[in-house]
């Protein structure tokens, strides 16, 4: 039996950690811890991108890893912490579906994602193709988190986690997108976060809370 090279083992390990973190986010109800988990996800993503860059000798992936590191581990969590402090949000109340049920739905989603990834990863020639299923699962789990949460801030963290999953998918299927596109995506995410920061204050000013249950007024028949 041939041993799997260390690089590949590391990539698989990181992928597993990413999935674990996605589940952890799904079950976490404290908003601050949610940001911690998001930062950890960013860190794992950056490390795994760097390992892929090293094992496959793709220098542009180092830039992508550095970009992820700066944006997802430092800038965005810092912005989020600041927002949480200034808006004084601590707890996510019970979501629309309770947490054990959410986790069960999550498991079903993971199985589905692996099925979805199967035809694509068979065609991929990258060393990382086996992690594509996990990448899609991360996207799905983040999506689930967005649906089940009621606090605006948790929904946004879900949105950012989804973007993490997509970046991971890009790395595992194709060794990352061209640099100009990655830069553009990073810029969009950053600007989006800044705009949302402003937006949160508007919501708070109007409703005195970030709970989206106030948001049930727009109906057709009113």
């Amino acid at each position, binding site marked *: 039996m041939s041993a799997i090279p260390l690089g590949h083992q590391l990539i698989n390990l990181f992928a597993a950690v990413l999935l674990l973190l996605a589940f952890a986010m799904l079950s976490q109800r404290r908003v601050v811890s949610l940001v911690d988990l998001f930062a950890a996800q960013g860190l794992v993503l950056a490390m795994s991108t760097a390992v892929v860059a090293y094992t496959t000798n*793709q220098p542009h992936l180092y830039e992508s890893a550095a970009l992820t590191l700066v944006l997802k581990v430092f800038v965005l969590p810092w912005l989020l912490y600041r927002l949480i402090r200034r808006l004084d949000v601590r707890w996510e109340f019970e979501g629309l579906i309770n947490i054990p049920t959410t986790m069960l739905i999550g498991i079903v989603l993971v199985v589905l994602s692996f099925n979805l990834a199967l*035809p*694509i990863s068979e*065609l*991929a*020639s990258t060393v990382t193709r086996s992690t594509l299923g996990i990448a899609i699962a991360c*996207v799905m789990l983040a*999506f689930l988190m*967005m649906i089940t949460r009621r606090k*605006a801030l948790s*929904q946004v963290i879900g*949105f950012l986690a*989804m*973007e993490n999953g*997509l970046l991971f*998918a*890009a790395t595992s*299927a*194709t*060794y990352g*997108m*061209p*640099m*100009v*596109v990655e830069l*553009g*995506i990073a*810029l*969009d995410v950053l*600007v*989006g976060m800044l*705009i*949302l920061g*402003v*937006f949160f204050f*508007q*919501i708070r*000013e*109007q*409703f005195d809370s970030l709970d*989206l249950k*106030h*948001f049930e*007024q*727009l109906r*057709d*028949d*009113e």
Partner: protein
Amino acid sequence: MIEILLVLALPVAGAALLALVGHRAYAPLVNVVTSMLTFVASAVLTARVIEQGPLLVMSKQFLVDPFNVFLVALTAFVGMTTAIFSRPYMRIEEQHGRLTPARLRLYHSMFQLFMFTMLLALTTNNVGILWVAMEAATLTTVLLVSLYRTPASLEAAWKYFILCGVGIAQALFGTILLYFAAEKLLGAGGGALLWTELNDVRASLEPTVVSLAFVFLLVGYGTKVGLVPLHNWLPDAHAEGPTPVSAVLSGLLLNVALYAVVRCKVLVDGALPDAFAKNLMVGFGLLSVVVAALLLSRQKDIKRLFAYSSIEHMGIITFAFGIGGPIANFAGLLHMTVHSLTKSAIFFAVGHAAQKTGTQVMDEIRGLVTISPMIGWGLALGALAILGMPPFGVFASEFLILTTAMREQPWATPFLLAALGLAFAAVFSKVQPMVFGETNAMRLPVRPAMIPVFAHLAIVLMLGVWIPPFLADWYRSAARLIG
């Protein structure tokens, strides 16, 4: 090349200037002048394309071909007329106390940035940058939708951000898959995302991956087009945002999103042996037409009414591109043009009507024509035009689409006809009492700008009876390109 740079740089410069100087008395004028210059630049670009054919410049990063050149001109034109309209409109809003100078500063600079993102999405040759620009277009308009800071407008903006954000994330995954399929043929790096390169090798793209990619791209960009069942954000964002924003969302953003879908469809059609992409588009398009037509009669808010009408028309265009072939594509392109012009004209008239009566509730708007014939007739003619009355251009395109549908997809024709009939009944019965009868409108402090409304309607009327030869040529060659 310089023309493309100008078209893109002018709105950015305008946005920076308007953000820096803040809201001064001349800011709306700067906004108008910047939009006019952008339009002039796009007209020069258009003239060049007429003269020299398609442009592919700056290491193939920008592409202007018959398919997007008229959309660039249309976008710049409607941007200009909207800026002209918004000058008196926003002044009245300010005097009514709904807006502060700080928010007007935000409005003007974001409006210019929004124009930039749409023009970038149209002119770029890079499918990845197309995605980036589409996402940026959402971001620039989120704060515009919530400009009034009312609970309803905040909710609408939040819905808009989250739904379009999730949608556009799907489109990113689709783009990744497309890159994945292309990278095998074109090698890694920037080249594999260039549309022209992809188009050259489209026949050898991996069919499984490409069909999967198209599903994600259609769902993703389709959310922004407002295709049912992904349309939920659209009526709210249109109804709660300021009217100039509703006009550009309906008239321009939906078109640009549909443009993105069609660009992707061209690639997918080449890669797949069957009509997978076409069938999906026919299905989504028809569903949107029917559902929107059913919902039209239930509307009470005038801007929501016309927002649903936009969903209906986007459905018709998607359906037309789904059928494909030279005639349906030609009609689809024509419909994109006339819908954009008519709908923004309607929103201009609706905006002033709502200001005159102080409400957007249709039951409370009465007899516009007695106090202000221009607004009343503008709304009435706009409504007739959008409902497809001859001799307006919408009639011509809808007629072409219907006759092609009878030949290509006969089963769909009854649904289409029924939906168009329903839409006519719903919109006409609501608009008629608003325009005629006893009035309750008041006088406005500033004279409304009605020239854009009639300019748009005049062009729509002209396109109904006579299409300029160069435009017809573009439509034809773009129709061939779309396949």
